[in-house]
């Protein structure tokens, strides 16, 4: 037994009791409800509708992750090179948004994005558009709403990585004749990859299971898995099917995580520098 194992015991019991047991119960229900067998999995994997919902889920999570990285990178870079007093104020503002109720923020986006909302009204008033842009009840609405919620989870690990990069490397690149674009592509980007990978994974996995924002800002044709599971559990009371769907999502997520571990390395994938 490795040294210090005894000290880990309470944590292990906790993890087993609150994480492993429920997941096993979920698995059990997915192959026993309403009767024993794999018919729930056969239904989910054999039906075009469920395949579409799975596809939507991964599409939305991917789009959200990519857009979040693109928006978060400049912000994180700015935070990393800012004087620290100013940076802590900006940090405060970003963190503050995380403390505001999720539902309130999502409803606020509804008010902004809808056809009669602030954005469309303003654009129409100044004559830029004549008919309202479809910003809500579609993929655009879901992406905007979710990127906004996910940004802090991307910015925070990224700032840590960027701050750890020695600024002299960039100066050295410039001295050797690299253009700013080259310096970015060949120095800054590779060095910040661990942060991008850590934040990206977190955003992607959180997006996979998101419920409220897609339900309110998306249309029914962008339905994601979490909403479908909620329907199965709450409205249809088909717990076997809901459990199977949840378990498939879990397996796919774990597979992606394993893949990332292999590609980036364990320490880097979890943001350890």
């Amino acid at each position, binding site marked *: 037994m490795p040294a210090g194992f005894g000290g880990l015991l309470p944590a292990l019991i906790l993890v087993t009791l609150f994480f492993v047991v429920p997941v096993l119960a979920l698995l059990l229900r997915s192959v026993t409800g309403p009767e024993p067998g794999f018919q729930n999995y056969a239904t989910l994997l054999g039906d075009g*509708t469920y395949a579409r919902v799975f596809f939507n889920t991964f599409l939305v999570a991917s789009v959200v992750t990519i857009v979040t990285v693109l928006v978060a990178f400049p912000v994180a870079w700015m935070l990393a090179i800012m004087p620290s007093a100013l940076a802590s104020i900006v940090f405060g503002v970003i963190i503050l948004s995380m403390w505001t109720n999720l539902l309130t923020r999502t409803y606020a986006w509804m008010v902004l994005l*809808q056809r009669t909302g602030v954005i469309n009204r303003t654009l129409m008033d100044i004559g830029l558009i004549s008919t309202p842009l479809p910003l809500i*009840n579609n993929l655009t609405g879901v992406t905007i709403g979710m990127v906004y919620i996910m940004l802090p989870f991307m910015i925070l690990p990224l700032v840590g990585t960027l701050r750890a990069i020695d600024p002299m490397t960039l100066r050295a690149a410039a001295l050797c004749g690299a253009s700013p674009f080259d310096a970015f592509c060949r120095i800054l980007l590779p060095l910040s990859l661990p942060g991008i990978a850590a934040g990206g994974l977190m955003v992607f996995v959180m997006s996979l299971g998101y419920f409220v924002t897609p*339900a309110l800002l998306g249309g*029914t044709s962008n339905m994601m898995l979490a909403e479908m599971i909620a329907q199965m559990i709450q409205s249809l009371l088909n717990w076997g099917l809901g459990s199977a769907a949840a378990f498939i999502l879990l397996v796919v997520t774990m597979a992606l995580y394993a893949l990332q571990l292999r590609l980036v390395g364990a320490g880097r994938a979890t943001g350890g520098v």
Partner: protein
Amino acid sequence: MKLIFTGILAGLLAATAAKAEDMVFTSWGGTTQEAQTKSWAEPFAAASGIKVLQDGPTDYGKLKAMVDSGSVNWDVVDVEMDFAIKAAKDGLLEPIDFKAVPKADLDPRFTTDHAVGSFYYSFVLAWNKGAISGEPAGWADMFDEKKFPGKRTFYKWSAPGVIEIALLADGVPADKLYPLDLERAFKKLDTIKSDIVWWGGGAESQQLIASGEAAFGQLWNGRVFALEKDGADVGVSWSQNLTAADVLVVPKGAKNKETAMKFLAAASSAAGQAKFAEASGYAPINTKAKAEMPADAVKSLPDAHVDGQINLDMNYWAENRDAIAERWYAWQAK
């Protein structure tokens, strides 16, 4: 340390003991549950000394979980009637003790062995007068994109209502609705699908119509009533209004079954029903209630629009709930 723990435990036990007579009422929240609290729970508590704790929103998954695990915290729950019929069949509900709940004056349409009516409502066609030119006359107009272009709103979940509306708009006579021709209904709905905005809850439906985000739609009459009371400029057509009901049920194994039955008696009494109907605009399920209401309040009830009124078939829905839901969500996700 141990002493403190024992003390806390003893305190908790004492607290639960004191609460044994209290009961929990669960409903959908919002203006409806507020009216239920004022019309039923408060007078009941004042008369009996039994405290009625409010919980919500109603969640069928939670109800099943409570019954399955044998730890039932809800004593009376407001549910949709088609769910109640199905849940009774699945063994999730206590039978109603009609010795404690007087049955004579209850509308038989909304009373079963396992449920007492809560209220009944109509789906009506409502519109924002500022967002639409002309007045839609009936369900067929919701499918007429030439006459009424723009967004329209329907109830999002698989439930009695939208399928029937599509069939009526397609020319199916009211007495030939059931069994539902789903193929035909979805084909009709396909013609306007891209212009449908779905509402998932009462507040959302009000917001969509009041803001003009959707010019018109299928709403619960009580929500239109509340919009009118707030001074919103809305129009309403009662042509072929579709009735459905909420009922009150007692989950199997509820801790305060006897208290729950007493509460049901109070809630379904003429006085309780009259008060709730006046506050909500939903119709009473006690046939004596209207006599206790002010005349102008009676005018805004579904009861005042029985001409051409259609009763959604709750038994048909209870029977086919899951099969329809599967098709419904598959169609929506397409």
